[in-house]
Structures are given as C-alpha cells and as structure tokens.
C-alpha cells in the first residue's frame, strides 16, 4: 500500500488525476503503522486542500496522534495541521497544539509554535488568548524555538508596532548575542552565526524603529555592530548586510550609520556578482527617495546596468530611474523605458512599465504638447491590449476635461486629432484594439476642432477601419459611436448610414444597438440637432445614480409578492449559515477532551475586516517618510546643496574639454563611447541634486491637475469639507452646552483676572468658572496642593449636563513643557463623550491653543476647537467630543494633536474599547423574542466557566457580563439567560446564554454584521477576567 501511495503521489505530480487514491491516503494515515502513517500523512498533505470534503475524516486521527507518546507521530500530526487545516477545524486541535508548547522536546515546541503561527494567519481571533504563550516561546531556552516565534512577532508587529515597543530591548539583546557569537557553534552557517535569525531580527527592528526616535536609538549600537561584523566573504553575509541597510534606512536616521550604509550600498552596486548588483539596485531604489545623492555617486554604474544583458537587471534599473524622475529628465527616462518595452516580451513587465510611463507622462510638465501625445501613442501601440484599462480611460478623461488653460486644451486636442488622422492613413492592421478605440473616440469628439476637415472625410476613414476582419466587435462599437457623433452634416450622415446599415442585423446586441441608433438619428432631424449640438461636447449630465425612478417599479413588484433584494454578501452569508460544522461532542463518549476549548466558530467576518482595517492603518502610516524634503539635519542640507552643484561642475568641464579635444586631435572611439555615456548620465541625472527631490510624487508641480467639477464629490477640496462639517458639528454641541452651568470649583486662584472667553461655544472657560466661585471657595491655596488636587479636580469642570452621568477615571494623555492633557470618558445615552482637559502647567500664558482629534473607526465631529488664551498656571479648559461608533470593531483608536502659538504640536492617542459604546437596552421578554427572530447576523461560541465550585454559574456569569459590559438582563429562565444591549448609534445586539456541564454557551444576534463577533470577544474577556 505504501509503495502504491508513493506512486500515486508521483502521478499527481506529473499532472495526472489520481483522486481515487485520496481516500486510501486517509485510511493509511488512520490505520497504518508509523511507517505507513508517514506516507499516508504525506499523501494527504499533498492531495487535499483546505476546503476538501475528505479532510473531515482526518480530524480524529490527527487528534489521536497529537496525544500520542511517539515523537514522530506528534511531529507528523503537527506538520499536517499546519499545512492543510482550515479555519473551522482549528478549534478542535487548538488546545492540544497549545499543550505542545510546553513539550520537553524542542523540535515539538518549535513545530507547535509554527502551527500556531499558521492558525494566527488563518483565524487571528481564535488565538488571541495565547499571546502571552508566544512571549514564553520567545524566551525559550532553545534558540530554535525562539527563532520560530519570531515569525509570529514579525507578523504581529507588522500589524500594530505600537503594542510591542516594549519588546525592542529584548530583540536588540538577542541580536547582540547572536552577532557576538554567543550561540552554539551548531548554528553557524559558513562561520556566520545564525544568519537567518539575524535577518529576521533586523526586519523586526526595522518595523519597530520606524518613525520612532526613542526606539531607534536603542538599536543604533547593535546595527553598527552587525555592519562591522559582516565581513565580506560569502553570500549570506551580504544577505545580512542587505537587511541591515534596509533597517538603517527605515528607522529614525542617524548620520554616522547612514554614511556607513551608503558605503555598503556601493559595495553591492559595484560588485561583479550579478546577484549582488541586482540587490544593490534594489537598495538604491529603496534609498534614493531619501537620499538622491547616492544615485549621483553611482550614476556610471547605473548607466552600465541600463545596457546589461540581463533583462531583470535592466528592469530594476528602470525602476530606479522611475524613482528619480523629475521635470528635467523625464523625457530621457521615458525614452529609455519605451526602448526597453519595445524589446521586452514578458507580459507582466509590459503591463507594469506601461503603467509607469503613462504615470510619468501625465505627471510632469513636458517640453511640448506633441511629446505627450507621441508618448501616449507609443504606450498604446506597445502596451496594446494587455495594459491596464484605466490608462486609455485616464488619457481620454484628460483630453475631455482639459487642464487649466483653454488654449492649451485646444492645442492638445488638435494635436491628437492630427496625429490620429495621419495614423489612419497608414496601415492600421497592426494597431491594438485599445488604441483604435482611443483613436475613434478622439476623432468622434474633437475632429471638429480642425478647420477645413470635413466630417465626411473622417467618417470615411473610420469606415475603412471596419473593413478589417481582425477588429473586435467592441472596437466596432466604438467606431460606430464615433460616427454617430460626426453625423452633423448630411454628407457624413449618408456615409455613416451606409456603414451602419450593414450592422443593423448583426448578432452582437451592443453593436446592433449602436447601428440602429445611428439609423434612427439619421431619420429624425429634430432629434439629431438636440442630441448633437455643435461644439457642445463638454456638457456634464446629471445622472441619477440611486435609480430612484425605478422606485415605483420596485414597490409594485414587492406588492405582488416578490422577495426583497438582498445584497450578494448577505445572500452568501445566509447560505453559509446552513453549513456550520458542529464540533461539540454529541455525547460524552468522545475520547478527546474537546471541552477544554471548543469554539464552534463559523467564519468570523471581523477577523477579516479587522485585519484589513489594520493593514489600512499601517499603510497610511507608511506614507509619512522619515526623511522630509529638506532632510533631517540642518548641516545635511548644506552638504546637499554643495553636492547639488557638483554634477554640473563635474560634467560641464569634462564635456567642454572633450569637445575641444575633438577639434584638435582625432579622438579614439573609446573616448567617444565614454563620452556618450557621460552625456547620457548628465541628461539622466540632471536636476537630481539641484532640485533636492524627495519623492517623485511631491517633487514637481503637477501639470494636469484636473478641474474641480461640482458633480464629482471626490474632487471637492478637503479643507472645504472640514470647514462645513465644523459648523455642523458645533451646532450639535451648542445644544449640549447652552445650558451648561459652570460648576463651582474649589480651585480658585486669587490672581485670576477673568480673561473673557473668546473661544468657541463648546469651551467652558475655567477662568470664568473660578472667578464666579471666587467668593465661596477657599482662598489662595498653596500651589503644591493645587497640583496634587488637579487630577481629581478635573471631572468637576465638566458641564452640568454631564455631571450626573457615569464616567471613567481621568487619565493623563501627554504633557509637554507648558501644556498637560488629560481625558475622561463620559457615558452619555446616545454617544460617548470624550472630554479632553487642557491645563496650562507653565507660568506664562499660552496663546491660541487648538485641539484636533480624528479616528478611522469612529465618527468624530471634525472640528478644531481653538481657545484664545490659557492665561495662567493651572488654568484649565475642557474640550468635548461626542463620539459615535458607526461600524463596530473591538476597539477604536482616537488620535489627536494639540498645538499652540508658542510651541511644537503635541500628539496623543487614546484607545477606546467597544464596551465604551455599549449601553443597556431595556426590553421585555416578548419584545426580545420578536427581535431575536428578525436579526440575521449571529455568532455562537462556547466559553469555559472556570469556577466549578460556584453555586449558580449562570447567575455569576450574567452578573459578570452585566457589570463589565453594561448589558441589560432581560430574563432568566432555568439554565438560560437572555440579555440585550445596544450600540450608541442605536443598533441592538441580543445575547442568549446557556449553561451546561460547566460550559457557558453564548449566542449573539444583531442586525449588523460585525457587532456580534466583536462583542463576543469582549464577553470572552469579561468571563476570563472574572
């Protein structure tokens, strides 16, 4: 059987179907001896995939083997688990794999760690509770296990670098030990200590140190050490060096390190080994945005690479050139790219490069309009039909919408028409379809601009296109559409009709429709003049995108008993609900103790959405560069300027010299070649230094800034949006604060001069408060006492409407030299009110303090509260924000910044939990029943009850949930309890709890998708913390 199975594997590998053997592979894994089991497992992991039906049959075997005392069986089971187990089977094996983390053999621990990492990748929510076990794995005495755990940390830190900053020190220490050769000699590879481990650590450090000066400072020393230690003798040291370089350029910069790194890049680029050259180019590409001078240093090498025989090297060089493009060298670079494109046959490269060329052509101010048209033509003819469809679309939109000046628009369009007319005169058979479409559209729209050109002529030329058999029906449609636009004159009309007539009986419906429309237009003169006004091509039509004119139809259909429309994702979800896998034991006879943690999890939508939103967040952060346009250090700027003058001074004399030489003596061909290269170099790198370019995006003024159209919401200026929402949100607060009576405080300051509040309405000026209460409060306390009392004192500054409400403790957000910020959450019925207290802790007054907060997960009133003066020591102002969670998530991060006239901006961030937005929902049991049935999104999970000695487990659990999560207990019936709550935005979530045999089964339902899942996470936490 074993031999047969190996042969079946071989057959599958060669691409022959051997699905009949799958079931035997499973059987072999189940029943065979260890020898056969191994083959069985191997076959299973090769044959089956995550969603294969037969995989279910394997669960029991894997569970059995995980508990085996035989080392090899456990290894095999762990391997198979990490390779093919899907999300819904993870709960079944999770506790067993967790146990393996404490196994005595390091190989088992290591495999268990990797298996858990795999689980984390598939279903992050399910392994949330074992994060501290990962920490233990990181501190494992065996370096192998520690190495394995780095995989997990790399991933975790990539998702949220903030929460792992505290580990930086450990990572640095580990790296220091590894670099210093403290590991056993076994781990050496070509006498380099644990190179893969070093790379992993360097990558983690890069993530941690990004945009964080303090963390970066911790690693400078060890980075320096690794740069020094990596003596050049083998590939693997280069691999470490490369990672080191990347890290150095990612973290907060330090000039000495950067210098060394730049030298290292030189080693890569100048290396004769082609692999290293490739990596050198990559490193340059990465670095050049921060330090364009490096490219200048290596310009001759780059030029050589441009002519390299390996297309991959060439492509990488072009990528580098793309990064250093500016207004002055754009035409040379684009030409180089087009040259490469003409030779390249690889489809992917073509698509990618064509996109880049198009981007460059659109972005930079170019010498002539004709250059732009020519470049775009080249792109269309080379890119052909494989390029991204948005390139022609963008081009057409640019032509149609125009730029800033009308005259240039006209010129550009005219140029386009001219070039296309001449193209049509030549042989058109080789042109790609997309290009033909662009041609016909442009001719249809703009050919009237060319004086003396008869529409009939154009129609005739377009008509010739249709004769070609190779033209697709889609292109034919475009051509016909263009023709119908040209039907202004009777001459053209009659020609067009002739052509169209051929297609009125065509099989393709789109083409036929086009043809019939054209015929109709020909017959009806009135319609023609209405539809085709002369020169009226730029009238924007209002389109009813909500399809409201169909409302009547929909309500009619509903009245006749049609099913209401469900969006596709909802339909799919309902379908998948029927396929839930039950992992709960049907009886107690099951040998495996599933009860330890049997999560009956279905797909949890939040898992996906959470991670995606996290990555979004990361991306946004990544946009900000460590290096600004001006560089970090003032002296840096000076050197840059000095270097900027260098290229011209180097090249100009040598150029002239060579020229004069050529007049005097006959120069050798070698000199000539060299000269050519130098010329190319000077044209490629022109303006690199002088323009001080940071990123290509930011380096030059965009020529093609699209005109702002009122119809297009995306084009609306952002500052406009902010200011309008400002007035909107502040009006909401007016209501809140109009009746806010200042609360008397016991902090009174005799020096208070009652500065009149010139701030906005949402400001409660503390100085006014104190002056009001000046008579009744105790007079002139010593300032030390005041300071101590400040924290506890702050809540009393809240407006009276908020005083009676539940609120959290005041926590300090940040404090600078003169300003201290604290925050307090007040749980209002329909929003979470975030109160931010700004206190002046300096002796002088602070002018024009403004506070701005934002959040990606929450709806935040976008406003900037400005306070004119914070006049004296311990003067406090309160800024209030009403936050509402629209889309549920387990937590939300609020970021904010405070700035004032005299000092730097202070920024802070605050993490709010979902629980802050949960309010009890008082319901009767009947109402609950009705609502329960109507909600479509549900999640069910079994939680373990830890305390078995408790009398009434349900009661205890419910109370815990009520206290921690602010739920309303609707009713308790026997072993079941029902609870209800709502999100502050008014959307309910219902809970159903049920205890059996020491387990608490929670079932949540809600009308919105992610709420149950997120709330479940908090329930889990609440029960665990109990």
């Amino acid at each position, binding site marked *: 059987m074993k031999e047969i199975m190996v042969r079946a594997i071989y057959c599958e*590998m060669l691409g022959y179907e051997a699905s009949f053997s799958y079931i035997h592979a499973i059987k072999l894994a189940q029943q065979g001896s260890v020898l056969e089991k191994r083959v069985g497992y191997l076959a299973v992991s*090769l044959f089956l995939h995550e969603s294969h039906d037969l995989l279910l049959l394997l669960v029991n075997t894997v569970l059995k083997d995980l508990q085996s005392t035989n080392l090899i069986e456990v290894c095999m089971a762990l391997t198979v688990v990490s390779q093919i187990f899907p999300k819904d089977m993870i709960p079944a094996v999770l506790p067993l794999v967790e146990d393996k983390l404490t196994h005595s053999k390091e190989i088992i621990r290591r495999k268990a760690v990797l298996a858990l990492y795999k689980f984390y990748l598939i279903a992050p929510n399910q392994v949330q509770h074992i994060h501290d076990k990962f920490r233990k794995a990181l501190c494992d005495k065996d370096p192998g296990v520690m190495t394995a755990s780095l995989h997990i940390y790399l991933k975790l830190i990539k998702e949220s670098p903030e929460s792992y900053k505290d580990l930086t020190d450990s990572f640095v220490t580990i790296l220091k030990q590894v670099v210093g050769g403290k590991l056993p000699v076994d781990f050496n590879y070509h006498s380099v200590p644990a190179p893969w481990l070093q790379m992993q650590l360097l990558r983690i450090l890069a993530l941690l140190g990004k945009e964080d000066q303090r963390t970066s400072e911790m690693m400078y020393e060890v980075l320096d050490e690794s740069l020094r230690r990596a003596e050049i003798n083998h*590939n*693997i040291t280069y691999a470490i060096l490369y990672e080191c370089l990347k890290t150095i350029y990612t973290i907060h910069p330090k000039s000495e390190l950067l210098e060394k790194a730049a030298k290292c890049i030189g080693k890569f680029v100048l290396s004769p080994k082609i692999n290293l050259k490739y990596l050198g180019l990559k490193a340059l590409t990465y670095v050049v945005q921060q330090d364009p001078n490096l490219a200048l240093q290596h310009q001759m090498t780059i030029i050589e690479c441009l002519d390299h025989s390996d297309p991959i090297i060439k492509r990488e060089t072009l990528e580098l050139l793309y990064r250093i493009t500016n207004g002055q060298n754009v035409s040379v670079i684009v030409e180089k790219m087009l040259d490469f494109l003409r030779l390249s046959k690889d489809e992917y490269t073509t698509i990618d490069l064509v996109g880049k060329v198009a981007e460059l052509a659109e972005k930079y101010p170019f010498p002539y309009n004709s250059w732009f048209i020519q470049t775009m033509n080249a792109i269309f003819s080379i890119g052909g039909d494989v390029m991204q469809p948005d390139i022609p679309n963008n081009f057409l939109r640019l032509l149609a919408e125009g730029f800033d000046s009308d005259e240039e628009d006209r010129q550009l369009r005219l140029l386009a028409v001219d070039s296309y007319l001449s193209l049509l005169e030549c042989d058109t058979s080789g042109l790609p379809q997309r290009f033909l479409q662009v041609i016909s559209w442009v001719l249809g729209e703009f050919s009237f601009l060319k004086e003396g050109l008869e529409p009939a002529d154009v129609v005739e030329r377009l008509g010739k296109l249709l004769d070609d058999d190779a033209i697709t029906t889609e292109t034919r449609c475009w051509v016909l559409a263009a023709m119908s636009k040209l039907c202004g004159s009777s001459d053209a009309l009659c020609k067009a009709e002739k052509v169209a007539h051929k297609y009125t009986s065509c099989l393709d419906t789109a083409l036929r429709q086009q043809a019939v429309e054209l015929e109709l237009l020909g017959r009806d003169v009135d319609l023609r003049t209405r539809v085709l006004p002369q020169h009226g091509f730029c009238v924007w039509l209002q389109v009813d995108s909500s399809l409201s004119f169909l409302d009547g139809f929909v309500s009619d259909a509903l009245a006749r008993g049609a099913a209401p429309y469900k969006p596709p994702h909802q339909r799919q979800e309902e379908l998948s609900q029927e396929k839930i896998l039950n992992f709960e034991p049907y009886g107690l006879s099951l040998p495996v103790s599933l009860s330890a943690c049997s999560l009956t999890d279905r797909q949890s939508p939040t898992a996906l959405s959470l991670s995606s939103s996290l990555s979004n967040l990361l991306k946004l952060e990544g946009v900000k560069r460590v290096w600004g346009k001006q560089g970090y250090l003032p002296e840096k700027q000076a050197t840059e300027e000095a270097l900027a003058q260098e290229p011209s001074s180097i090249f100009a004399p040598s150029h002239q010299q060579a020229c004069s030489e050529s007049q005097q003596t006959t120069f050798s061909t070698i000199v000539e070649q060299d000269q050519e290269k130098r010329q190319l170099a000077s044209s490629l790198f022109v303006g690199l230094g002088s323009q001080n370019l940071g990123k290509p995006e930011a380096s030059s003024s965009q020529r093609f800034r699209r005109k702002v159209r009122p119809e297009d919401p995306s084009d609306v200026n952002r500052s406009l949006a902010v200011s309008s929402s400002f007035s909107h949100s502040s009006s909401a607060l007016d209501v809140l604060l109009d009746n806010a009576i200042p609360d008397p405080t016991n902090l009174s300051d005799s020096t208070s001069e009652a500065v009149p509040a010139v701030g906005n309405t949402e400001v409660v000026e503390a100085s006014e408060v104190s002056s009001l209460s000046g008579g009744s409060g105790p007079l002139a306390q010593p300032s030390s006492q005041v300071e101590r009392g400040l924290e506890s004192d702050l809540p009393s500054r809240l407006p009276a409407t908020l005083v009676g409400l539940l609120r959290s403790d005041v926590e300090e957000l940040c404090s600078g030299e003169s300003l201290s910020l604290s925050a307090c959450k007040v749980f209002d019925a329909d929003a979470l009110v975030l109160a931010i207290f700004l206190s002046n802790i300096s002796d002088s007054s602070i002018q024009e303090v403004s506070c701005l907060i934002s959040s990606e997960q929450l709806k935040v009133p976008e406003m900037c509260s400005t306070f004119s003066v914070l006049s004296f020591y311990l003067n406090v102002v309160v800024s209030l924000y009403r936050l509402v969670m629209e889309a549920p998530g387990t937590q939300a991060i609020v970021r904010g910044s405070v700035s004032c006239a005299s000092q730097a901006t202070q920024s802070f961030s605050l993490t709010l939990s979902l629980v802050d937005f949960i309010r009890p929902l008082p319901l009767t049991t009947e109402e609950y029943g009705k609502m329960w049935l109507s909600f479509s999104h549900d999640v069910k999970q079994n939680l373990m009850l830890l305390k078995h000695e408790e009398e009434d487990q349900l009661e205890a659990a419910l109370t815990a949930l009520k206290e921690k999560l602010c739920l309303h207990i609707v009713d308790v019936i026997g072993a079941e309890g029902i609870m209800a709550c709502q999100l502050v935005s008014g959307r309910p979530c219902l809970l159903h709890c049920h205890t059996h045999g020491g387990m608490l089964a929670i079932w949540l339902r809600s009308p919105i998708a992610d709420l149950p899942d997120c709330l479940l996470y908090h329930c889990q936490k609440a029960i665990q913390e109990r």
Partner: protein
Amino acid sequence: MIKAILIFNNHGKPRLIRFYQYFAEDMQQQIIRETFHLVSKRDDNVCNFLEGGSLIGGSDYKLIYRHYATLYFVFCVDSSESELGILDLIQVFVETLDKCFENVCELDLIFHMDKVHYILQEVVMGGMVLETNMNEIVAQVELQNRMEKSEFVFISRM
C-alpha cells in the same frame, strides 16, 4: 512566506512540487510550465532572481532559483523573504539531499520522492522556514528513519 517549491529538470519535467497555498490541479501544472518557461531561457551568468509575473498571489511574488546540473530548484516566495537568504536555503537543501543520498542525482528524486518530501518537511513547514542547520535536518530525518526501521523489524517479526 514561501508559496511553492518546484524542482524540475532541464526539460521541464517536474521532479518535486510542493505548494503551500492551494491551487487547483491544472493551475499547478500551468504554474510549473510557465515557471519552467521563464527560468529555462535564462543564461547561467544572469542573476538568480525573477520578479513580476502574476501567477501566484498577484504582484507580491518573486522566483528565486538555482540550477544544478540537470535540475532547477525554484522557490516562489513573497516579498517578506530575503532573496539571498532563500538562495542559500536552496543550497542548504541541496547539500542535505546530497548528504542523505550520497551524491544525489535526478534518479534519486524519482525513486525516493517520499524521502525528499520528508527532508523538505524538516526544512520548510507550512511555508515557513523551520530549520536551516544542515546537521540538524539530517539528524531529524535519520531519527525518523531509525524509528521506522525498528518498527518495521518489529512488525515483520510478528
């Protein structure tokens, strides 16, 4: 993460394939064909990395390969892996094969493909690099072989 490991000979015949991300059978074969097509037309004196292509996982995908006598060893990885690191990992893998088979050749891969898989399992697990130390890998594989043999003897005696 490593997405796939492909070994094929100079004629494009697959000798070992291992995917760490699911692809349908015909897709797998297509990937092998196209990878072979890409790799085989490259000279020996050009670099060992290939980028671009949209076969596996879109644009976040690169091929790192080595050519030994009659065999190509190709690793398809995403951007989180170090190029040179993987290049040396291939070297480690091949050296390990050499040690286990004593002068490994293409025929060894054909007739002992299960063993090759076991060795690979010790190097890469579920797409992650598990072990890079050759001695350790050999030790693990031998341990397994020994245990199996003893069991085999035990069974055959019964």
